[in-house]
């Protein structure tokens, strides 16, 4: 546990050495205008009182010229975290240091520092984006998932008489913004589970804690599992049996081919939020969870794994594949490590890409148990022309046909609007184990 305050933390951060470009301040320019125009009028109109009028301005400029102006500064930038979720309140601590200057001058210059933050895309400042002082804290919220640049920070230092301003700009670090996970508490469990220790009660008897039945005692059974009331009733020793507890492999398949809908609630937004929620829910039940991100026939994948860190690895993998084209392997050549046999495949897709639908059919025919979560929330725009209305109807019928054909193959398709909990559309499949068809 750390007891460091924000100021101490930012002072410990690695600094960036920046060159200051000094130029006259607005105040100096105004004084210069007054001085030069006063002298000009005095010469033109031959009136010495205007030379006297120009004197204070010119004296201030002349005396201010000898002020010390450091050529370089060190700026320390420290975000509260390099990773965050959509809508999370985060902070950015910045501090300026002047190397190799006298203590007093240094403090004076640092106190005159003025910071202006230009936030990057989808980064919303909370409160002011400009502040003054040697150490400043800006607060912000990342508005949408993705790898986001925090923006740039302008720092302005003024000399002692405020006649010159030193400007420098520092580029701020990158932030990995994770999609805010949806809510999912229940889980879809396969009927046939691999022979691996876990938390889901299986159909076979074993050493679990869920009661499954009573049978006659055979030598070798534990004495503490004897069911005495049943033994008394039947006149023979009876023992309790329990269901074995197994874990399953879950592969989340996110379709990143088409991103339709309003930014923030688009199909890709919903797919990532849903996948993040599913990853949390299944890793919470000690299942091995992996992810495949499908893009235009290609795929990037992460082999199933256990634990909380796997959730972040999964989201990182999905963010890394957000580049507009597939960089990973071809989907048809995915290794067994990416798609283990007998795994439950949870698909998040708007089902708009015909090749992806064909891929799902192919997977089904290869014997994978799949569940499709339809994340399409947009439709073609409604227009008055009959041709447009007809096109809209045909589009709807096509979509219904795609879903129908998947259901006919034994692939359940449920629709999720991104607002409600994922438990609601999945309720029909979480109440009892899901049949693994072959």
């Amino acid at each position, binding site marked *: 546990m750390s007891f460091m305050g924000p100021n101490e933390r930012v002072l410990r951060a690695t600094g960036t050495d920046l060159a200051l470009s000094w130029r006259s*301040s*607005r*105040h100096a*320019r*105004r*004084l210069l*205008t*007054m001085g030069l*125009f*006063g*002298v000009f*009028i*005095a*010469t033109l*109109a*031959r*009136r*010495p*009182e*205007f*030379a*006297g*009028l*120009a*004197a*204070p*301005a*010119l*004296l*201030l400029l*002349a*005396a201010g*010229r*000898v002020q010390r102006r450091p050529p370089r500064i060190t700026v320390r930038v420290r975000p509260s975290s390099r990773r965050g979720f959509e809508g999370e309140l985060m902070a950015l601590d910045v501090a300026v240091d002047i190397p190799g200057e006298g203590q007093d001058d240094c403090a004076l210059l640092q106190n005159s520092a003025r910071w202006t933050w*230009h*936030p990057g*895309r989808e980064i*919303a400042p909370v409160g*002011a*984006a400009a502040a*003054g002082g040697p150490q400043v804290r800006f607060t912000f919220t990342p*508005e949408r998932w993705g790898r986001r640049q925090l923006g740039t920070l302008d720092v302005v230092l*003024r000399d*002692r*008489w*405020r006649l010159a301003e030193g400007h420098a700009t520092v580029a701020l670090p990158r932030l990995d913004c994770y999609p805010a996970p949806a809510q999912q508490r229940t889980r879809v469990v396969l009927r046939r589970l691999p022979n691996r220790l876990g938390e889901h009660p299986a159909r076979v008897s074993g050493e679990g804690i869920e009661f499954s039945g009573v049978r006659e005692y055979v030598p070798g059974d534990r004495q503490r599992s004897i069911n005495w009331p049943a033994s008394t009733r039947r006149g023979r020793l009876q023992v309790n049996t329990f269901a074995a507890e197994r874990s399953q492999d879950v592969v989340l398949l996110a379709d990143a081919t088409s991103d339709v809908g309003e930014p923030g609630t688009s199909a890709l937004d919903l797919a990532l939020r849903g996948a993040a929620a599913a990853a949390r829910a299944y890793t919470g039940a000690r299942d091995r969870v992996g992810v495949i991100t499908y893009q235009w026939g290609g795929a990037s994948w992460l082999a199933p794994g256990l634990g909380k860190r796997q959730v972040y690895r999964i989201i990182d993998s999905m963010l890394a594949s957000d580049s507009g084209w597939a960089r990973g392997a071809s989907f048809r050549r995915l290794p067994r490590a990416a798609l283990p046999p007998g795994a439950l495949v949870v698909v998040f897709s708007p089902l708009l890409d015909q090749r992806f639908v064909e891929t799902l059919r192919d997977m089904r025919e290869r014997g994978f148990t799949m569940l499709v979560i339809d994340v399409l929330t947009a439709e073609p725009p409604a227009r008055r022309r009959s041709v447009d209305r007809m096109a809209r109807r045909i589009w709807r019928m096509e979509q219904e046909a795609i879903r129908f054909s998947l259901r006919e193959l034994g692939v359940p398709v449920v629709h999720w609007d991104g607002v409600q909990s994922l438990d609601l559309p999945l309720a029909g499949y979480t109440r009892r184990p899901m049949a693994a068809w072959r």
Partner: protein
Amino acid sequence: MTRAVPRLPGDAVARCAAAGLLGAGCVTWAAVPQVHRGTAGLALFLAIFGVAAGTLRLALSAVPAPEDSYLLPAALRVWLRFLEALRLVPWEEGALLAVLWLEVLHPSRPWHTAVLGAALIAYLLATHLAESGASPGVLRPQARVLAAGAALLALGAAAGMLPAAGPGAGSALQRLAAAAARNAAAGRVLPHVARDNGS
């Protein structure tokens, strides 16, 4: 997402008002008594406009401009253009030039010009404090230089009030050269004084 428009704190409002009042005082001082020759009317208009726009710039300095200006409503775009123009143009410099020109149009009145010079310096310092948000304490190190400037201002006014040695242009030029030499000498000496005193 709606965000609260930042407001000026109380002392910033006071500084802004002080700058505006000093500017208005300078314009009034330079304009009275009213002259009806040359470009006096235009100079007066420009001086009033410059001081008013400069004060408005200071008052609206805390209003933020959005980073992303795409697809904004027309009214908001017009407002942003107005803010941009207000912040870009050096209104105070324009007001200064107009006020000095207004003063030139009057017949010679050295003590009046000296008071105007002091008021203009005060106006510029008040404007600087209002736009930088600094406290008046930051001007303390400049007190000696300002005092020397005030002395030179008084000397300039006194030189203007002295009768010319002769009626020709040579006499006026001599007085002007003396004033310039005095300013230059002070300019050469004062930086060293300022450095020695650590001010």
